[in-house]
């Protein structure tokens, strides 16, 4: 339950190019903070800098209001779960769990008690006498987890802990880790490349790309108001559709392919300062045209691929030279090559400046539903 604060932190291996630059973020006590980004974006390096396994070359790292740039890893009040678990193969599960307590000179009875508590919590009690190689992937992952929480460190760092598990187990461990974190109230810093993990687990997430912060915020805010096209396409599955649009002279229309034009309402026209713009729309916001739809709003698209997933249908089509996808709920009988009329509503579109890549208009119609109190009455 300690705060972690980074002020202008950067990392450079050759003193010329920075792999991480100017990271400023404050992670609150008891928060589940997720660092997410594509491979090679520097997220693991950042975590290792917080852990003290990697030197910080610029800026200040504070752990619980103490400047910690030069503290050794053991003095930082952290525990860490590694991607490959880093279990000691020659020690039993029990010895693995208490390895750190042994080093910290905690009494034998206390060690035993804590080990038993943790094993109980994670369902490892029957396996305490086994060696790691006799365990399945999921059990090994639990041992790694047990080793991290048995220290009772206020901060826990996790480096892609679920990436070696199969999809089903991953979904299960996701909620389990989240529950343990809530129960113990640990400050968690969690690194992943999987945007689903980031969305489902984090209180707040930070999206990194090329060592720079793209956006920090609550998962749902980031989903609704992505700061730039990178975040827009990284978060969400299938990703947000992106198209390059030309603003016509009168500024009442954005054209992003021969067929698709978007009318700009009067009040938003002053937003368009350049004549080129990036348009983004989530696949689920592309709607099927109905009888009531006006002819000029209909866009006819030819499907190139169709996936029916039982409760939803995803199909792709070409739009302005890029592949777009639409996600409709329900089962739609669409064949590849069919021409489908769709509607692109201005209200659910994001607009980005094509030079600065900054967002200039966020979607207003995002179909968010709120349960009011009356609903439950």
């Amino acid at each position, binding site marked *: 339950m300690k705060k972690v604060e980074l002020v202008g932190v950067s990392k450079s291996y050759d003193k010329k190019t920075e792999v991480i630059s100017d990271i400023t973020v404050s992670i609150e006590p008891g928060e589940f903070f997720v660092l997410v980004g594509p491979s090679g974006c520097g997220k693991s390096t950042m975590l290792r800098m917080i852990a003290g396994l990697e030197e910080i070359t610029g800026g200040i790292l504070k752990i619980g209001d103490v400047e910690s740039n030069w503290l050794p890893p*053991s003095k930082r009040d952290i525990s860490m779960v590694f991607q490959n678990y880093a279990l000691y193969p020659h020690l039993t599960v029990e010895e693995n769990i208490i390895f750190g307590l042994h080093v910290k000179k905690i009494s034998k009875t206390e060690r035993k008690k804590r080990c038993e508590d943790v094993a109980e919590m994670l369902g490892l009690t029957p396996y305490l006498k086994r060696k790691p190689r006799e365990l399945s992937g999921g059990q090994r992952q639990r041992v790694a987890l047990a080793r991290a929480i048995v220290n009772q460190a206020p901060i826990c760092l996790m480096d892609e802990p679920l990436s070696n598990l199969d999809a089903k187990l991953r979904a299960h461990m996701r909620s389990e880790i989240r529950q343990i974190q809530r129960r113990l109230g640990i400050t968690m810093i969690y690194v992943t490349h999987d945007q689903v993990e980031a969305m489902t687990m984090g209180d707040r997430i930070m999206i990194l790309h090329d060592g720079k912060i793209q956006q920090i915020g609550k998962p749902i805010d980031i989903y609704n108001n992505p700061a730039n096209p990178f975040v827009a396409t990284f978060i969400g599955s299938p990703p947000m559709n992106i198209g390059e649009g030309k603003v016509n002279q009168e500024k009442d229309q954005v054209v992003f392919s021969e067929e698709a034009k978007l009318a700009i309402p009067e009040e938003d026209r002053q937003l368009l300062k350049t004549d080129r713009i990036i348009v983004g729309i989530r696949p689920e916001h592309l709607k099927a045209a109905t009888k009531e739809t006006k002819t000029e709003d209909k866009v006819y698209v030819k499907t190139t691929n169709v996936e029916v997933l039982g409760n939803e249908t995803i199909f792709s089509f070409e739009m302005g030279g890029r592949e777009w996808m639409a996600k409709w709920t329900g089962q739609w009988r669409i064949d590849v090559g069919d021409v489908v009329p769709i509607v692109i509503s201005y209200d659910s579109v994001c607009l980005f400046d094509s030079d600065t890549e900054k967002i200039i208009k966020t979607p207003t119609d995002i179909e968010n539903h709120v349960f009011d109190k009356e609903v439950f009455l």
Partner: protein
Amino acid sequence: MKADAPPKLSFWRKSLNARSALLYLFPSILLFAVFIFYPMFRTIYLSFFLTDQQGAAALFVGLENYAYLFESKEFRNSIKATVLFVLYTVPTGVIIALFLALIANERLKGIGFFRTVYSSTMGISVAASSVVWLFLFHPSIGMFNRLLNVMNLPGVQWLLDPDWALVSISISTIWMNIGFSFLILLGGLQNIDEYLYESARIDGAGYWYQLRRITIPMLSPTLFFIITISLINAFQTFGQVDILTKGGPSQATNLIVYSIYREAFVNYQFGTASAQAVFLFICILIVTILQFKLGEKKVHYQ
């Protein structure tokens, strides 16, 4: 119903697998037979005979060759020298190689140079390095005695003094074997997952604790291999002895293999030489089996 009965395969077809396996094994079986199995059985055979000058079996004497050996003072001395030699060289050699491997495993600038230097003795033949050591041990112009001179200590007759000769041979042998042991141990160290140490660092384990609880157990299969190989090598030492001391002074360095050579090719007693060889074979076999039995529990295989 008839179709259900398994068709009878001819012997020729049933042995198809075995025949192709034999075909693949043929080259190594041939080489092993010519250079290992035949000499081995020939040696055992000869150890029951008295031989003529050409080494042909002349007179069957049963176990008399063996009886003669155990009564011979010379042979007992040779066993004693060999055992001492093994005790001098194996533990020291492995410990020094382990120490060098540990310091060469650190990530430092220019560590490649030191790794090359430490493993370089592997590339020098026993004969060449023995000649070098011959000069180092030389009583008047040798480096060791000169160093002692500088420090105002009396010189040592390294290879001529019966009390020192075996120690001198051991020193040169340790030096020769370090390259190989170092290389294997370094390979073993580099195989240990870096994450284990990082995890231990977060727990706050110090260098010695990490060495004792992680490095040594994780290295145990490699250590075990190196100890076994060093033991067998030490029992079979020949070249250094032949060049540096020729078994002297007064039999102090007459190790078993050298004694076998002398018996067979200087004294032309192929019968007793063969008996010694069989005895050495049994000794190495017993030591290795014991080592495997005792070591197995301590060694952790991944």
